[in-house]
């Protein structure tokens, strides 16, 4: 029901993202989706990859601060209103989103949302109950 997301602490300095992503590239890890949250001093690089446990170990071994977090992956139709509809489902139940990012698939007409909410279980059952497609770990990692 949930998928694993890697969060990596990154100082704001040029070249740092290239260095960090090179580490996982060398371990032959493929990135499915990513986002960066930034503040003045630091950022959090969030990654969904095909081999999360391996990626976590690789990054930790390289001396980085990394955590694995459960997030929800939701499939929605890639058409006007698709996203708004999913958000309305959460809004109706007063579930607020901490952060979210999205990507579209290569060969279907689907779009995918990766989201983190306060109460993952509640959000997953609401989203699932409303007929939205919840993706499993396999769905995402093998995409």
């Amino acid at each position: 029901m949930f998928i694993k997301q890697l969060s990596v602490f990154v100082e704001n300095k040029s070249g740092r993202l290239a260095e960090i992503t090179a580490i996982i590239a060398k371990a032959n890890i493929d990135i499915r989706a990513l986002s960066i949250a930034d503040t003045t001093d630091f950022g959090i690089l969030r990654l969904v990859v095909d081999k999360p446990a391996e990626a976590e170990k690789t990054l930790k071994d390289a001396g980085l601060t990394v955590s694995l977090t459960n997030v929800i992956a939701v499939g929605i139709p890639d058409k006007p209103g698709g996203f708004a509809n999913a958000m309305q489902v959460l809004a109706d139940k007063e579930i607020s989103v901490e952060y979210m990012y999205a990507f579209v698939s290569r060969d279907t007409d689907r779009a995918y949302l990766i989201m983190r909410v306060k109460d993952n279980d509640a959000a997953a059952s609401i989203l699932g109950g409303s007929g939205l497609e919840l993706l499993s770990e396999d769905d995402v990692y093998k995409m």
Partner: protein
Amino acid sequence: MSVYKPEIECATRSYIRAVQSARLIKMAENAYNNVPFYKQKLDEADIKPEDIKSIDDIVKLPFTVKNDLRDNYPFGMFAVPQGELVRIHASSGTTGKQTVVGYTKEDIEIWSECAARSIVGAGGTKDDIIHVSYGYGLFTGGLGMHYGAEHMGATALPVSSGNTKRQVQLLQDFNSDIICCTPSYAMFIGETLRDMGIDPKSLKLRAGILGAEPWTENMRKEIEKLLDIKAYDIYGLSEIAGPGVSFDCEMQDGMHINEDYFYPEVIDPDTLEVLPDGEFGELVFTCIGKEALPLVRYRTRDICALITEKCACGRTTVRMTKPRGRSDDMLIIRGVNVFPSQVEHVLLELGMDPNYFIVVDRKNNLDTMEVQVEMTSAMFSDTVSELESTKKRLESALQSTLNINATVRLMEPGSLPRSEGKAKRVNDMRKI
């Protein structure tokens, strides 16, 4: 050229020494009989108060360090019962605990007189308005200069620090004659004047008595130009009294020590041997005139030299050079004493790894302090809001322990400098 207490400030050297001898004898008795810490120290060294017959015998006495005050926190070093105290001040200790100092009525009288001598040294008279922009509170700066101004019959203006535009307004409206603050704040006021388009020549202000932090001759020239005043240095530390331990006269050539109350020595900080006059070493004071806190050979950790040549101003008291550094790792930031160990203490209290690095800088003439902390797995979160609240929690804990604002920068693990031996914890980029 006026001197507040010429009978002592311009006395013969032999007279000054006689006063010092008499006071040291009395003080050694007071410390031995009323401070268990000193009784033990003297007993261990097999010295009795009777062995102290003149000021020359001071070398027989043991040294006192800041940690002795911490170990006897809060009132253990006082030679009088708390009921005899009329005032308590405190400054930063080396860890979370403050260094506490107490004063009897007579101690306040001595300190006020010394602060008054300093104001007169800067050309102050009883007709002047003394604008005190040092902070009022546990810090000795504000109340020290305030009492000094009142002691000499001048008009004290207790503005305290901060709110610079209001400071400027008061300087304009009240026609303050002399301002007392830190040199960096004097610079800041000068720049505020410039930014507000006010010609410093339009102000009556003619002198600044500036201290509580180290500054250079270059800064002096700049302040004198910015504010169109003469800038006088004043030295003090709460353990000994507060501002007024020594002060600049109009010659601005070394600070006259009020040595009838605070007996100075300069020692080699490694061998603890007393150094000949004129040599640089660690400044040591003995509070020969104070009742409540009779500190014996207190190591200030300030590095300076004593000047014994007679000053052209007519005062015969010994002078000290501007402190040129410290024999410990204490930083003086915006006039506040900061020890790196205090930062470590805060991190440990919050359950964080004591891996930190302090960057001190001076931006627009105000000191800044940044504490860099390495991000650990335990502190990390995938949400920005949690990381920012960790940062704020740390900043407010630092503020309450250090009494100054420090910004926290969260760093990647391994990014702080490591060293084999003693860790380098500080980068002081100020040019002072």
